[in-house]
């Protein structure tokens, strides 16, 4: 009778294996990385309503949206110095506005770039053209999540191929467009 237990468990295990394969990359980081400066998108994009493309200004002209130069940061922060006040971020970390802003000023003073940690990283064999997506009218949040509500930005979507392809399927105008959007060479070359 032992066999039956074995056979059943093999079936169950292989089922789990397949399920695991299917969902292997479904787990996304719930927390973002520790950045050199605790830059809160929640405060900038959320509370202060600064449009995404004010800082990521190339999203509609280039494949790469770009990240703001230190010069751009200091453009505002030469005026905005931050209160000497504590702030509890959504990850529970307590920071001081002024201390964080002083860090930006330090970088500027030293003429050093800020070594930001990449949150959303595409493998190099994937070509994602920001311009095309923005021009088609997609919100940044579609892929990046509700960034304006995050103190510490994290990867909100798993951004694997399934994520991309589902969206491409949903947004095709017609059959021919669908064929184009699902053409492998659209993203991989």
């Amino acid at each position, binding site marked *: 009778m032992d*066999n039956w237990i074995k056979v059943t468990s093999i079936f169950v295990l292989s089922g789990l294996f*397949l399920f695991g*394969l*299917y969902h292997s990359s479904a787990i996304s980081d719930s927390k973002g990385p520790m950045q050199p400066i605790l830059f809160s998108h929640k405060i900038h994009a959320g509370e202060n309503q600064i449009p995404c493309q004010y800082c990521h200004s190339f999203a509609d002209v280039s494949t790469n949206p770009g990240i703001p130069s230190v010069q751009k940061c200091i453009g505002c922060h030469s005026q905005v110095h931050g209160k000497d006040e504590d702030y509890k971020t959504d990850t529970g970390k307590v920071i001081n506005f002024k201390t964080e802003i002083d860090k930006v000023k330090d970088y500027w003073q030293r003429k050093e770039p800020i070594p930001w940690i990449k949150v959303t990283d595409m493998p190099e064999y994937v070509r994602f053209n920001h311009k095309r997506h923005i021009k088609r009218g997609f919100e940044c949040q579609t892929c990046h999540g509700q960034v304006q509500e995050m103190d510490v930005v994290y990867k909100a979507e798993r951004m694997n*191929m399934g994520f991309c*392809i589902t969206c491409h399927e949903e947004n095709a105008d017609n059959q021919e467009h669908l064929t184009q959007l699902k053409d492998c060479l659209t993203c991989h070359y």
Partner: protein
Amino acid sequence: MSQDTKLTYSRVTTDVVAMLEKPSVKWWALFMISLSFVGIGLICFIYQVYVGLGVAGYRHPVFWGTYITDFVFWVGIAHSGTLISAILYLFRARFRMSIYRIAEGMTVFAVLTAGLFPIMHLGRPWNFYWLFPYPNQREIWINFKSPLVWDVFAVSTYLTVSSLFFLIGMIPDIAAIRDKVTEKPRRIIYSILSFGWKGSNWEWLHYGRAYLYFAALATPLVLSVHSVVSWDFAMGNVPGWHTTIFAPYFVAGAIFSGLGMVITLTIPIRKIFHLEDYITLDNYDGMAKLIMFTSGIVGYAYAVEFFMAWYSSSPFEWQQFMYRAVGEYALFYWIMVICNVVIPIPLWFSKVRRNLKWLFIISIFINIGMWFERFNIIVISLSRDFDPAAWGVYKISWVEAGITAGSFAWFFMFFLIFLKTLPSVSISEIKEILPVPKRGDK
């Protein structure tokens, strides 16, 4: 099996169970040698994965070489087992009884060996599972138009079916062993493997039917598997590959090589385990006749390939075949022809067929010849396909040699384990062809 032996039911059981006694030092020595070669093969493979396929001898334009040769070789070896157990079962050929278990074991282990090569020859073997259809978030499936996917299905089906066939065929025998062994752990293992077999007429009824259906399923399967393997080539447009005779040619070649391997394996086993009463000269005579026949088919295929190449008046085909005969690889080509066509000719004489020394020597040459047949088909064709500017000559590397040696060791390792754990001669079927004990016999 001849009727005048002194075999009885109980002697059959005792003899077979005696083969499973504690392994001798010699066995251990052989086993350790096998194991160390498996280790060498494994090291070669790990090295290859780590550094890249460049450590193998591949070069433009020969993208397949020793590994695929090995693959086809082992799949070919795997064919005689099922052939002997299934096709000859359906044909009720009596000479199969004594050797079919060994042949089946050989089949399973050969498929196990063969199955490694398609993975090992991949550029990115860690992604081998992409060749299987499984639901994934990418929503992308596999290309069922690709002969390689057919291969995946054919070989895995073949492995499954031949393993089942092998294990099911052993049930009554394992029951017999179970009832003979005394050590408890062994008894438990054999109990499980015997599925609680008791040999009642009910069980025999279903078992007989099931076995028949298995044989009926395995027969077309065995023909299909090597056909599919041949289509890996025949579906390609490479001159020397793209031909319709490949399926029958490969199947015949597979049976040919498989029988060669059966003879190579059984002659020493027969001697070591004193199975002269079981595996008789008549058995070898039967196999040798089959070898004669398949050698003829193979020889015919060689000739007809040449003829078609000439008759097609395609420069690509004709130059390819002339290249085989007189080009850089001519040595390999003529080794193949001599081993597979010339050397088996003495088998036309009954004296040779019944002389085990000669048979053994011939069978070794057949194994060599058939390995080179695959090598020639794969490598020579690729070396000179359409574009003259791309022609190039392949040389085997030490990594490939190591993995090939490892594959033989891997096969023999399983085979050695098999000899000491499972009945290598079918107890029940030998008994079946013995006269049933009757009162009047005494």
